[in-house]
Protein backbone atom coordinates (compact mmCIF):
# COMPACT_ATOMS: atom_id res chain seq x y z
CA UNK A 1 0.00 0.00 0.00
CA UNK A 2 1.11 3.54 -0.66
CA UNK A 3 1.88 5.56 2.39
CA UNK A 4 2.65 9.19 3.14
CA UNK A 5 3.90 11.19 0.22
CA UNK A 6 6.34 14.01 0.32
CA UNK A 7 4.53 17.00 -1.07
CA UNK A 8 7.28 19.46 -0.29
CA UNK A 9 9.97 18.58 -2.79
CA UNK A 10 11.00 21.10 -5.39
CA UNK A 11 9.10 21.25 -8.61
CA UNK A 12 10.89 20.42 -11.87
CA UNK A 13 13.28 22.89 -13.34
CA UNK A 14 12.33 26.08 -11.65
CA UNK A 15 8.85 27.33 -12.04
CA UNK A 16 6.05 25.70 -13.94
CA UNK A 17 5.56 28.91 -15.88
CA UNK A 18 9.10 28.88 -17.21
CA UNK A 19 9.14 25.21 -18.14
CA UNK A 20 5.75 25.41 -19.83
CA UNK A 21 6.72 28.52 -21.81
CA UNK A 22 9.94 26.85 -22.98
CA UNK A 23 8.04 23.73 -23.98
CA UNK A 24 5.56 25.81 -25.95
CA UNK A 25 8.36 27.70 -27.73
CA UNK A 26 10.08 24.47 -28.66
CA UNK A 27 6.87 22.93 -29.97
CA UNK A 28 6.11 26.01 -32.05
CA UNK A 29 9.64 26.01 -33.49
CA UNK A 30 9.26 22.39 -34.48
CA UNK A 31 5.93 23.10 -36.12
CA UNK A 32 4.02 20.79 -33.81
CA UNK A 33 1.90 23.44 -32.12
CA UNK A 34 0.09 26.56 -33.33
CA UNK A 35 -0.28 29.17 -30.58
CA UNK A 36 -3.58 30.51 -31.85
CA UNK A 37 -5.08 27.03 -31.66
CA UNK A 38 -4.07 26.84 -28.00
CA UNK A 39 -5.94 30.08 -27.41
CA UNK A 40 -9.07 28.99 -29.24
CA UNK A 41 -9.19 25.61 -27.55
CA UNK A 42 -8.83 27.07 -24.07
CA UNK A 43 -11.43 29.69 -24.92
CA UNK A 44 -13.89 27.01 -25.93
CA UNK A 45 -13.35 24.91 -22.83
CA UNK A 46 -13.47 27.85 -20.46
CA UNK A 47 -16.46 29.65 -21.91
CA UNK A 48 -18.58 27.39 -24.10
CA UNK A 49 -18.43 24.29 -21.94
CA UNK A 50 -19.33 24.06 -18.32
CA UNK A 51 -21.73 22.78 -15.71
CA UNK A 52 -24.56 24.86 -17.16
CA UNK A 53 -24.97 22.18 -19.82
CA UNK A 54 -25.52 19.42 -17.27
CA UNK A 55 -27.61 21.77 -15.12
CA UNK A 56 -30.09 22.33 -17.95
CA UNK A 57 -30.52 18.57 -18.32
CA UNK A 58 -31.15 18.21 -14.60
CA UNK A 59 -33.65 21.07 -14.54
CA UNK A 60 -35.52 19.61 -17.48
CA UNK A 61 -35.55 16.21 -15.78
CA UNK A 62 -37.07 17.81 -12.68
CA UNK A 63 -39.74 19.50 -14.77
CA UNK A 64 -40.62 16.59 -17.03
CA UNK A 65 -40.80 13.09 -15.59
CA UNK A 66 -40.89 11.60 -19.07
CA UNK A 67 -37.63 13.34 -19.92
CA UNK A 68 -36.11 12.06 -16.70
CA UNK A 69 -37.10 8.49 -17.56
CA UNK A 70 -35.51 8.75 -20.97
CA UNK A 71 -32.39 10.38 -19.55
CA UNK A 72 -31.95 7.55 -17.08
CA UNK A 73 -32.72 4.73 -19.50
CA UNK A 74 -30.71 6.04 -22.48
CA UNK A 75 -28.75 9.22 -21.86
CA UNK A 76 -26.80 8.81 -25.11
CA UNK A 77 -29.99 9.08 -27.15
CA UNK A 78 -31.16 12.13 -25.17
CA UNK A 79 -27.81 13.87 -25.66
CA UNK A 80 -28.09 13.26 -29.40
CA UNK A 81 -31.59 14.71 -29.46
CA UNK A 82 -30.47 17.71 -27.41
CA UNK A 83 -27.51 18.17 -29.74
CA UNK A 84 -25.00 17.94 -26.89
CA UNK A 85 -21.64 16.88 -28.27
CA UNK A 86 -18.02 17.06 -27.27
CA UNK A 87 -15.30 15.27 -25.41
CA UNK A 88 -15.58 12.53 -22.85
CA UNK A 89 -19.22 11.63 -23.34
CA UNK A 90 -18.94 8.53 -25.52
CA UNK A 91 -21.35 6.75 -23.21
CA UNK A 92 -23.13 8.51 -20.38
CA UNK A 93 -25.12 7.11 -17.51
CA UNK A 94 -27.28 9.25 -15.25
CA UNK A 95 -27.62 8.13 -11.63
CA UNK A 96 -30.62 9.44 -9.71
CA UNK A 97 -30.44 10.55 -6.11
CA UNK A 98 -33.60 9.88 -4.15
CA UNK A 99 -34.52 9.55 -0.50
CA UNK A 100 -32.31 6.78 0.88
CA UNK A 101 -29.95 6.63 -2.12
CA UNK A 102 -27.03 8.96 -2.82
CA UNK A 103 -24.70 8.64 -5.80
CA UNK A 104 -21.17 10.02 -6.06
CA UNK A 105 -18.67 9.84 -8.95
CA UNK A 106 -14.90 9.40 -9.00
CA UNK A 107 -12.13 8.14 -11.27
CA UNK A 108 -9.58 6.39 -9.08
CA UNK A 109 -7.20 5.52 -11.95
CA UNK A 110 -6.94 8.98 -13.52
CA UNK A 111 -9.48 11.78 -13.60
CA UNK A 112 -12.21 10.80 -16.07
CA UNK A 113 -15.05 13.29 -16.10
CA UNK A 114 -17.91 14.15 -18.49
CA UNK A 115 -16.30 17.25 -20.01
CA UNK A 116 -19.10 18.02 -22.46
CA UNK A 117 -21.66 18.06 -19.64
CA UNK A 118 -19.71 19.66 -16.78
CA UNK A 119 -16.71 21.37 -18.37
CA UNK A 120 -13.26 20.62 -17.05
CA UNK A 121 -12.98 19.12 -13.59
CA UNK A 122 -11.87 21.08 -10.54
CA UNK A 123 -8.50 20.21 -8.98
CA UNK A 124 -10.04 18.55 -5.94
CA UNK A 125 -11.76 15.97 -8.17
CA UNK A 126 -8.36 15.11 -9.65
CA UNK A 127 -6.57 15.13 -6.28
CA UNK A 128 -5.04 11.93 -4.92
CA UNK A 129 -6.90 12.59 -1.67
CA UNK A 130 -10.31 12.36 -3.33
CA UNK A 131 -9.37 9.50 -5.64
CA UNK A 132 -7.89 7.43 -2.82
CA UNK A 133 -10.47 8.04 -0.14
CA UNK A 134 -13.92 8.34 -1.69
CA UNK A 135 -14.11 4.63 -2.49
CA UNK A 136 -12.89 3.58 0.96
CA UNK A 137 -14.74 6.02 3.21
CA UNK A 138 -17.27 7.96 1.13
CA UNK A 139 -19.52 8.89 4.06
CA UNK A 140 -16.62 10.45 5.92
CA UNK A 141 -15.31 12.20 2.79
CA UNK A 142 -18.72 13.69 1.98
CA UNK A 143 -19.11 14.80 5.58
CA UNK A 144 -15.74 16.57 5.39
CA UNK A 145 -16.88 18.26 2.19
CA UNK A 146 -19.98 19.54 3.93
CA UNK A 147 -22.53 16.92 2.94
CA UNK A 148 -23.95 14.96 5.88
CA UNK A 149 -26.06 11.99 4.84
CA UNK A 150 -28.43 10.06 7.04
CA UNK A 151 -26.80 6.87 8.36
CA UNK A 152 -29.41 4.75 6.62
CA UNK A 153 -28.87 6.41 3.23
CA UNK A 154 -27.13 4.02 0.87
CA UNK A 155 -24.09 5.52 -0.87
CA UNK A 156 -23.36 4.33 -4.38
CA UNK A 157 -19.90 5.24 -5.61
CA UNK A 158 -19.29 5.10 -9.37
CA UNK A 159 -15.63 4.62 -10.36
CA UNK A 160 -15.18 5.77 -13.97
CA UNK A 161 -12.85 2.97 -14.99
CA UNK A 162 -14.08 2.49 -18.58
CA UNK A 163 -15.17 5.10 -21.14
CA UNK A 164 -18.59 5.37 -19.49
CA UNK A 165 -19.08 8.76 -17.83
CA UNK A 166 -21.50 9.43 -15.02
CA UNK A 167 -23.77 12.33 -14.18
CA UNK A 168 -25.60 12.48 -10.86
CA UNK A 169 -29.18 13.75 -10.97
CA UNK A 170 -29.54 15.48 -7.60
CA UNK A 171 -32.81 15.59 -5.71
CA UNK A 172 -34.97 18.59 -6.48
CA UNK A 173 -34.78 20.93 -3.49
CA UNK A 174 -37.89 21.68 -1.44
CA UNK A 175 -39.55 24.94 -2.33
CA UNK A 176 -38.50 24.88 -5.99
CA UNK A 177 -41.68 23.28 -7.31
CA UNK A 178 -43.01 26.44 -8.96
CA UNK A 179 -39.79 27.52 -10.59
CA UNK A 180 -39.17 27.46 -14.33
CA UNK A 181 -36.29 25.95 -16.25
CA UNK A 182 -33.77 28.77 -15.91
CA UNK A 183 -34.36 29.30 -12.20
CA UNK A 184 -34.15 25.58 -11.55
CA UNK A 185 -30.93 25.23 -13.54
CA UNK A 186 -29.38 27.95 -11.39
CA UNK A 187 -29.81 25.67 -8.35
CA UNK A 188 -27.88 22.82 -9.95
CA UNK A 189 -24.21 23.17 -9.06
CA UNK A 190 -21.36 21.30 -10.64
CA UNK A 191 -20.67 19.57 -7.35
CA UNK A 192 -24.27 18.38 -7.02
CA UNK A 193 -23.85 16.60 -10.37
CA UNK A 194 -20.61 14.95 -9.19
CA UNK A 195 -22.47 13.94 -6.05
CA UNK A 196 -20.47 15.72 -3.35
CA UNK A 197 -23.17 18.31 -2.67
CA UNK A 198 -26.92 18.76 -2.85
CA UNK A 199 -28.60 21.17 -5.23
CA UNK A 200 -28.97 24.67 -3.82
CA UNK A 201 -32.17 25.70 -2.05
CA UNK A 202 -34.15 28.45 -3.75
Amino acid at each position, binding site marked *: *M*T*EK*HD*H*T*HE*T*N*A*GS*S*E*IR*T*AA*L*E*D*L*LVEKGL*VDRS*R*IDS*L*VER*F*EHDLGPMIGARLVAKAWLESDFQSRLVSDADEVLRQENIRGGEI*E*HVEVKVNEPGIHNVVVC*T*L*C*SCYPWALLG*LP*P*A*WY*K*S*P*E*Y*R*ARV*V*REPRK*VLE*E*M*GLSLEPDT*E*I*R*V*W*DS*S*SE*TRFLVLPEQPAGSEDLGMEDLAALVTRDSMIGVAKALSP
Partner: protein
Amino acid sequence: MNQKRKVHDLGGALGWGRIPYDPQEEPFHEEWERRVFGMIFQVLPHTAVRPGEFRYALERLAENDYFAPDGYYGRWRSAMEVLLEEYGHFETGELDSRLAVPSGTGAGYRVQSPTAVNEKDLPPDSPTPIPEHRTVRRELDRAPSFQIGDRVVAPGNTAGGHTRLPEYVQGAPGVVVKIHPAEVLPDSTAHGLGERPQHVVSVAYQARDLWGDEAEEKVVINVDLYENYLQLEAEAQ
Protein backbone atom coordinates in the same frame (compact mmCIF):
# COMPACT_ATOMS: atom_id res chain seq x y z
CA MET B 1 -0.70 -7.79 -2.58
CA ASN B 2 2.85 -8.63 -3.52
CA GLN B 3 3.76 -5.99 -5.99
CA LYS B 4 4.16 -2.35 -5.16
CA ARG B 5 1.07 -0.30 -5.77
CA LYS B 6 1.22 1.51 -9.09
CA VAL B 7 1.53 5.24 -8.70
CA HIS B 8 -1.78 6.11 -10.33
CA ASP B 9 -3.85 3.26 -8.92
CA LEU B 10 -5.10 5.25 -5.96
CA GLY B 11 -8.44 3.73 -5.02
CA GLY B 12 -8.37 2.93 -1.31
CA ALA B 13 -4.75 4.00 -0.83
CA LEU B 14 -3.97 4.92 2.77
CA GLY B 15 -2.17 7.98 4.05
CA TRP B 16 -4.02 10.68 2.14
CA GLY B 17 -5.56 13.51 4.13
CA ARG B 18 -8.32 16.04 3.65
CA ILE B 19 -9.71 16.70 0.20
CA PRO B 20 -8.46 20.11 -1.03
CA TYR B 21 -12.08 21.11 -1.59
CA ASP B 22 -13.21 24.46 -2.91
CA PRO B 23 -16.82 24.56 -4.12
CA GLN B 24 -16.13 27.67 -6.20
CA GLU B 25 -12.99 26.34 -7.80
CA GLU B 26 -12.38 27.16 -11.47
CA PRO B 27 -10.77 24.60 -13.80
CA PHE B 28 -7.58 26.63 -14.24
CA HIS B 29 -5.63 28.42 -11.52
CA GLU B 30 -2.67 29.67 -13.52
CA GLU B 31 -2.10 30.78 -17.08
CA TRP B 32 0.52 28.07 -17.66
CA GLU B 33 -2.13 25.43 -16.93
CA ARG B 34 -4.20 26.80 -19.82
CA ARG B 35 -1.17 26.57 -22.09
CA VAL B 36 -0.51 22.94 -21.13
CA PHE B 37 -4.14 22.04 -21.71
CA GLY B 38 -4.18 23.75 -25.10
CA MET B 39 -0.90 22.16 -26.18
CA ILE B 40 -1.78 18.60 -25.36
CA PHE B 41 -4.47 18.38 -28.02
CA GLN B 42 -1.97 19.31 -30.68
CA VAL B 43 0.79 17.09 -29.31
CA LEU B 44 -1.21 13.87 -28.95
CA PRO B 45 -1.89 13.48 -32.70
CA HIS B 46 1.91 13.38 -33.15
CA THR B 47 2.51 10.99 -30.26
CA ALA B 48 -0.04 9.02 -28.25
CA VAL B 49 -2.75 8.37 -30.81
CA ARG B 50 -3.86 4.99 -29.50
CA PRO B 51 -6.56 4.67 -26.81
CA GLY B 52 -4.95 4.44 -23.38
CA GLU B 53 -1.51 5.50 -24.56
CA PHE B 54 -1.52 8.96 -22.94
CA ARG B 55 -2.88 7.54 -19.70
CA TYR B 56 -0.14 4.92 -19.78
CA ALA B 57 2.49 7.66 -20.19
CA LEU B 58 1.11 9.32 -17.04
CA GLU B 59 1.17 6.00 -15.20
CA ARG B 60 4.82 5.42 -16.07
CA LEU B 61 5.95 8.66 -14.43
CA ALA B 62 8.07 8.40 -11.32
CA GLU B 63 6.20 9.02 -8.06
CA ASN B 64 7.74 12.44 -7.50
CA ASP B 65 6.74 13.53 -10.98
CA TYR B 66 3.24 12.06 -10.70
CA PHE B 67 2.64 13.81 -7.38
CA ALA B 68 4.61 16.96 -8.23
CA PRO B 69 3.32 20.09 -6.53
CA ASP B 70 2.20 21.62 -9.80
CA GLY B 71 -0.58 19.08 -9.84
CA TYR B 72 -2.60 17.67 -12.68
CA TYR B 73 -1.37 19.96 -15.42
CA GLY B 74 2.22 19.56 -14.25
CA ARG B 75 1.71 15.81 -14.61
CA TRP B 76 0.29 16.32 -18.09
CA ARG B 77 3.30 18.43 -19.06
CA SER B 78 5.68 15.76 -17.78
CA ALA B 79 3.87 13.02 -19.72
CA MET B 80 3.89 15.23 -22.82
CA GLU B 81 7.66 15.72 -22.52
CA VAL B 82 8.12 11.96 -22.14
CA LEU B 83 6.06 11.20 -25.24
CA LEU B 84 7.80 13.87 -27.31
CA GLU B 85 11.15 12.24 -26.50
CA GLU B 86 9.91 8.68 -26.99
CA TYR B 87 8.47 9.56 -30.39
CA GLY B 88 11.66 11.31 -31.41
CA HIS B 89 10.29 14.84 -31.71
CA PHE B 90 12.64 16.00 -28.95
CA GLU B 91 16.20 14.90 -28.33
CA THR B 92 16.73 13.45 -24.88
CA GLY B 93 17.15 16.39 -22.53
CA GLU B 94 16.42 18.95 -25.23
CA LEU B 95 14.04 20.95 -23.07
CA ASP B 96 16.47 20.87 -20.13
CA SER B 97 19.27 22.27 -22.26
CA ARG B 98 16.95 24.94 -23.63
CA LEU B 99 16.22 25.93 -20.05
CA ALA B 100 19.89 25.70 -19.05
CA VAL B 101 18.97 23.46 -16.12
CA PRO B 102 21.05 20.41 -15.24
CA SER B 103 20.57 17.55 -17.64
CA GLY B 104 18.34 14.97 -15.99
CA THR B 105 15.85 17.45 -14.58
CA GLY B 106 12.99 16.49 -16.89
CA ALA B 107 10.61 13.65 -16.15
CA GLY B 108 11.93 11.72 -19.14
CA TYR B 109 14.97 10.65 -17.12
CA ARG B 110 12.88 8.94 -14.47
CA VAL B 111 10.05 7.47 -16.51
CA GLN B 112 9.60 3.72 -16.76
CA SER B 113 9.81 2.28 -20.25
CA PRO B 114 6.62 0.65 -21.49
CA THR B 115 6.27 -2.93 -20.32
CA ALA B 116 6.64 -5.48 -23.10
CA VAL B 117 3.19 -7.06 -22.98
CA ASN B 118 2.93 -10.61 -24.25
CA GLU B 119 -0.02 -11.14 -26.56
CA LYS B 120 -0.63 -14.48 -24.90
CA ASP B 121 -1.70 -12.57 -21.81
CA LEU B 122 -4.39 -10.71 -23.76
CA PRO B 123 -7.70 -12.05 -25.06
CA PRO B 124 -7.73 -12.95 -28.77
CA ASP B 125 -8.42 -10.18 -31.25
CA SER B 126 -11.51 -10.44 -33.41
CA PRO B 127 -11.91 -8.37 -36.56
CA THR B 128 -14.61 -5.82 -35.80
CA PRO B 129 -15.88 -3.06 -38.08
CA ILE B 130 -14.30 0.27 -37.18
CA PRO B 131 -16.89 3.07 -37.05
CA GLU B 132 -16.56 6.08 -39.34
CA HIS B 133 -16.26 8.60 -36.54
CA ARG B 134 -13.54 8.37 -33.92
CA THR B 135 -14.80 6.34 -30.99
CA VAL B 136 -13.64 3.54 -28.71
CA ARG B 137 -17.05 1.86 -28.96
CA ARG B 138 -17.40 -1.23 -31.12
CA GLU B 139 -20.30 -3.46 -32.18
CA LEU B 140 -19.53 -7.04 -31.25
CA ASP B 141 -21.27 -9.96 -32.89
CA ARG B 142 -20.83 -12.11 -29.81
CA ALA B 143 -22.95 -11.95 -26.68
CA PRO B 144 -21.47 -10.70 -23.39
CA SER B 145 -19.89 -13.46 -21.32
CA PHE B 146 -21.79 -12.35 -18.25
CA GLN B 147 -25.36 -11.53 -17.37
CA ILE B 148 -26.86 -9.13 -14.91
CA GLY B 149 -26.86 -10.80 -11.52
CA ASP B 150 -23.78 -12.95 -12.13
CA ARG B 151 -21.36 -13.09 -9.20
CA VAL B 152 -17.91 -12.37 -10.58
CA VAL B 153 -14.33 -11.84 -9.49
CA ALA B 154 -11.38 -10.14 -11.21
CA PRO B 155 -8.27 -12.17 -10.40
CA GLY B 156 -5.78 -9.53 -11.56
CA ASN B 157 -3.98 -8.17 -14.58
CA THR B 158 -1.33 -10.65 -15.61
CA ALA B 159 -0.15 -8.83 -18.73
CA GLY B 160 1.65 -6.26 -16.57
CA GLY B 161 1.13 -3.16 -18.72
CA HIS B 162 -1.63 -0.59 -18.88
CA THR B 163 -4.95 -1.73 -17.47
CA ARG B 164 -8.25 -0.28 -16.29
CA LEU B 165 -8.62 -2.85 -13.55
CA PRO B 166 -8.10 -1.06 -10.23
CA GLU B 167 -6.12 -2.99 -7.68
CA TYR B 168 -8.64 -2.48 -4.91
CA VAL B 169 -11.25 -4.74 -6.50
CA GLN B 170 -8.87 -7.54 -7.44
CA GLY B 171 -9.90 -10.82 -5.90
CA ALA B 172 -13.08 -9.43 -4.36
CA PRO B 173 -16.53 -10.81 -5.22
CA GLY B 174 -18.96 -8.49 -6.99
CA VAL B 175 -22.24 -8.64 -8.89
CA VAL B 176 -22.83 -7.60 -12.50
CA VAL B 177 -25.45 -4.84 -12.48
CA LYS B 178 -25.32 -3.53 -16.05
CA ILE B 179 -23.87 -4.28 -19.47
CA HIS B 180 -22.32 -1.24 -21.19
CA PRO B 181 -21.48 -0.87 -24.89
CA ALA B 182 -18.40 -2.78 -26.00
CA GLU B 183 -15.09 -0.90 -26.24
CA VAL B 184 -11.61 -1.52 -27.55
CA LEU B 185 -9.39 -2.99 -24.83
CA PRO B 186 -6.98 -0.34 -23.47
CA ASP B 187 -4.68 -3.06 -22.06
CA SER B 188 -3.99 -3.92 -25.71
CA THR B 189 -4.38 -0.64 -27.60
CA ALA B 190 -2.05 1.26 -25.25
CA HIS B 191 0.68 -1.18 -26.26
CA GLY B 192 -0.08 -1.17 -29.97
CA LEU B 193 -1.32 -4.77 -29.91
CA GLY B 194 -4.67 -4.32 -31.62
CA GLU B 195 -8.16 -3.49 -30.51
CA ARG B 196 -9.39 -6.79 -29.00
CA PRO B 197 -12.77 -5.21 -28.18
CA GLN B 198 -14.59 -6.39 -25.08
CA HIS B 199 -18.00 -6.04 -23.59
CA VAL B 200 -17.85 -3.83 -20.53
CA VAL B 201 -19.87 -4.59 -17.43
CA SER B 202 -20.64 -2.58 -14.35
CA VAL B 203 -19.80 -4.59 -11.25
CA ALA B 204 -21.18 -3.66 -7.83
CA TYR B 205 -19.00 -4.39 -4.82
CA GLN B 206 -20.23 -4.25 -1.26
CA ALA B 207 -17.83 -2.09 0.77
CA ARG B 208 -17.37 -4.92 3.26
CA ASP B 209 -16.06 -7.18 0.51
CA LEU B 210 -13.39 -4.60 -0.33
CA TRP B 211 -12.42 -3.15 3.04
CA GLY B 212 -13.45 -5.77 5.56
CA ASP B 213 -14.37 -4.66 9.04
CA GLU B 214 -13.22 -1.10 8.36
CA ALA B 215 -15.91 -0.63 5.73
CA GLU B 216 -18.60 2.00 6.20
CA GLU B 217 -22.16 0.73 6.42
CA LYS B 218 -24.47 0.85 3.42
CA VAL B 219 -21.88 1.60 0.77
CA VAL B 220 -21.70 0.04 -2.70
CA ILE B 221 -18.80 0.73 -5.07
CA ASN B 222 -19.51 0.26 -8.77
CA VAL B 223 -16.62 -0.32 -11.15
CA ASP B 224 -16.79 -0.72 -14.94
CA LEU B 225 -14.72 -3.68 -16.05
CA TYR B 226 -13.78 -5.13 -19.43
CA GLU B 227 -15.16 -8.64 -19.42
CA ASN B 228 -11.81 -10.32 -20.02
CA TYR B 229 -10.83 -9.13 -16.52
CA LEU B 230 -13.57 -11.23 -14.98
CA GLN B 231 -14.44 -14.81 -14.08
CA LEU B 232 -17.58 -16.21 -12.56
CA GLU B 233 -16.94 -16.43 -8.84
CA ALA B 234 -17.97 -20.10 -8.86
CA GLU B 235 -15.28 -20.87 -11.43
CA ALA B 236 -12.52 -18.73 -9.92
CA GLN B 237 -9.75 -20.48 -8.06
